[in-house]
């Protein structure tokens, strides 16, 4: 580890800790995985009431048992825990970057760490003590272990992530591909995947399923019944809670007739899945970039997104500086993000606090946010493919058939 980077890293973490411990008012971060729900779950657990009765708590029982036994949440420990979580995520991102370059340190490490720790989309949910910070940390750790080739740790960390939110299980395919291929950047020089590497995948899948089963067993032991499966795992698929969030599902499903609900739930869930295989196929030469794109897809189209999901997506672009010259409209998407990030809290408060607006205002701002994320995603896809073309002669142009 390069010791010149340590001061910068430490300074960032310390600043984050100060922010967490200072008595600033934290505005609402519209999410499913928020800390009041965790605290409520721990309280219910400690008073002998079933937290998974009728949707009081949507967290995994592992989280609840963790917070009620080993890591108690108080006003002091909670900011420390969340700051530690952010520090771990930033450290993981820096090491992913280093693994991608196949070096032990680089000059851009501090920048990569700062892109995570100073990203407001990451900081705000973390200050609000949302468990989505833990999901980010687990995701980045899984990526890190996969980049380093430590397949068991990677699959175990990913099994933890799947315990927290089942809809990320789609990402197991790119994770396994990453384990067998490696993170080194090959965007500019694509080669098809070796077919004999595909034979390495089934044992990995079996190992992942084994870890998942074990963790499911631990979760069932912790909660004492199987009620948590429907409340926690099935929540992203059944959409029981239509509280407004930054995503695109809630408004659609508030207006849905019950008759059509199962069909559209299926459509929306399948919609998440259909991106996985094509992106893995198209970016088989650089599956880390494919993972990055899939994070973008999930950030935009997830059922219960939080601000940390597009936050991770945007922070992770710092790991791919080779695509920066090929991003066509980064200014536009940047401004869209600025626009959306200002409008979202404004319209939320206008609608729900002041009462002078209505749901359509907030829904429009979520649409702008979705457009911003979608813009970044499309731009990244195009840039990732465009980079393989390389520099062009002055009278040549790239067209799409």
């Amino acid at each position, binding site marked *: 580890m390069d010791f010149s980077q340590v001061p910068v890293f430490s300074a960032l973490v310390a600043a984050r800790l100060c922010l967490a411990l200072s008595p600033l008012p934290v505005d609402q971060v519209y999410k499913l995985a928020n800390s009041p729900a965790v605290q409520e779950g721990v309280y219910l*657990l400690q*008073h*002998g009431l079933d937290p998974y009765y009728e949707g009081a708590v949507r967290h995994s*029982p*592992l989280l*609840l*048992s*963790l917070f*009620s*036994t*080993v890591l108690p949440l108080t006003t002091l420990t909670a900011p420390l825990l969340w700051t530690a979580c952010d520090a771990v995520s930033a450290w993981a991102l820096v090491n992913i970057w280093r693994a991608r370059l196949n070096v032990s340190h680089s000059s851009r490490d501090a920048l990569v760490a700062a892109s995570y720790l100073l990203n407001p989309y990451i900081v705000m949910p973390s200050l609000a003590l949302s468990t989505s910070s833990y999901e980010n940390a687990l995701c980045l750790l899984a990526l890190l272990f996969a980049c380093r*080739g*430590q*397949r*068991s*740790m990677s699959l*175990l960390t990913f099994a933890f992530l799947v315990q927290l939110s089942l809809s990320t299980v789609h990402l197991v395919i790119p994770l396994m591909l990453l384990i067998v291929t490696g993170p080194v950047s090959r965007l500019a020089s694509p080669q098809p995947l070796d077919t004999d590497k595909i034979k390495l995948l089934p044992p990995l899948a079996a190992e992942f399923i084994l*870890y998942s089963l*074990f*963790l499911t*067993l*631990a*979760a069932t*032991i*912790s*909660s*004492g019944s199987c009620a948590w499966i429907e409340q926690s795992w099935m929540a992203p698929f059944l959409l029981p809670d239509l509280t407004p969030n930054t995503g695109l599902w809630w408004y659609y499903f508030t207006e849905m007739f019950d008759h059509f609900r199962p069909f559209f739930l299926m459509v929306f869930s399948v919609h998440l899945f259909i991106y996985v295989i094509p992106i893995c196929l198209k970016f088989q030469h650089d599956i880390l970039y494919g993972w990055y794109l899939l994070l973008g897809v999930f950030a935009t189209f997830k059922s219960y997104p939080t601000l940390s999901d597009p936050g991770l997506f945007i922070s992770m672009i710092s790991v791919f500086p080779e695509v920066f010259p090929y991003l066509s409209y980064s200014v536009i998407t940047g401004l869209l993000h600025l626009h959306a990030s200002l409008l979202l809290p404004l319209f939320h408060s206008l609608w729900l606090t002041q009462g002078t607006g209505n749901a359509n205002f907030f829904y429009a701002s979520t649409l702008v946010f979705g457009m911003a994320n979608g813009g970044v995603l499309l731009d990244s896809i195009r840039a990732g493919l465009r980079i393989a073309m390389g520099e062009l002669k002055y009278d040549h142009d790239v067209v799409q058939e």
Partner: protein
Amino acid sequence: MRTQSVALGYYIVAIALLLALSAVAGAQLAGPVEDFFAQHGGSASASAHTNNWAVLVCASRYWFNYRHMANALGMYRTVKRLGIPDSNIILMLADDAACNARNKFPGCVYANQGRHLDLYGDNIEVDYRGYEVTVENFLRVLTGRMDASVPRSKRLLTDDRSNVFVYMTGHGGNEFLKFQDNEEISAFDIADALEQMWQKRRYHEILFMVDTCQANTMFSKFYSPNVLATGSSELGESSYSHENDYDIGVAVIDKFTHYILQFMEGINKTSQASMQDLFNTYDYKKFESHAGVRADLFRRPLDRTLVTDFFGGVAQAEILPFPPDESGPERSPEPKGALGHDEHAVGVVSPARSSNFNDTVLSGDARALQQRQFDTLIAAAAVGHPDAWADATRKLRAWASTFLVLVLVGWVGMRGK
């Protein structure tokens, strides 16, 4: 051998002592337990109903049957005054006397000569009016067998703890009552409807009162339990109207209903007058007909059945004693706030101290103490008796799952790959 027999002897003595103790404890408990259940006059005569309903039917139309509508409206006013809410009253008036073209006092219905009390007023709720008052609708109301589109205000939503007061007035005869001048309901129909109500647990007790000619025949066919019935005249007798009003021009009230309403004017919600008192006021000289009572299907003694059991919507509240004061480390070091003396078992609202509460400003300590005691009460009520064993198993489960997870992480970490 000897030690074994000694041990056996000890065991027998211990068991005998235990039995004796439990018997004594049981005997000691029996007294307070029985007192608790017998608090309201004993289980034999206390009414076990929890809500009251009334079905008031005036079955005849046209202006000259003004008195039947006044009968029903008089009963309506009485039961409302004694506490049955509009939501629990089904009022069926076959014609509109108040807004009749022949009514010299539009919008008003009077039940006495001289027009001292307007029964129509501006706060009445007629559920079935005009041509909706039919035999079919009446039976549907009683039995509850209605189309799903019928609104709640037209339904008799009784349960097995409801006391229902059914009052019918109109023109009747031997085991029939005329509805709307074109159909009639028979005593058998009503008896069968009441039996349906009994089988569907739609009433706890019924008081069936009917004011027509030959009214007692209407309840002669009942066969369901817990029905008390009274009527205005015997078979072969007519029931008579009481008085005319010379400006309205028609008879305004019937004798039977008039005297019953007169009795009710002396009743309020707290009255302990019994149904026997009401039936004791029946007098042939006043009614000019033999009013009858049928109590053989009714289980309770009439002198212990309150009038308000049927005519009023009286609820019974039980005041529980305050729980003992909780002492312990949570007590603030200065329990003497503005309330002065030591607070023992401070309830939420204590009448003796309410004036203090309003007059003085409580210091922070006293208010905090009161809030803590309040919270303790609420918490104790909410949580009940925590099960120590379930608590322990829960903690064990949480730690077990955390341990399993840590073992897995450690094992995978050790492998290094």
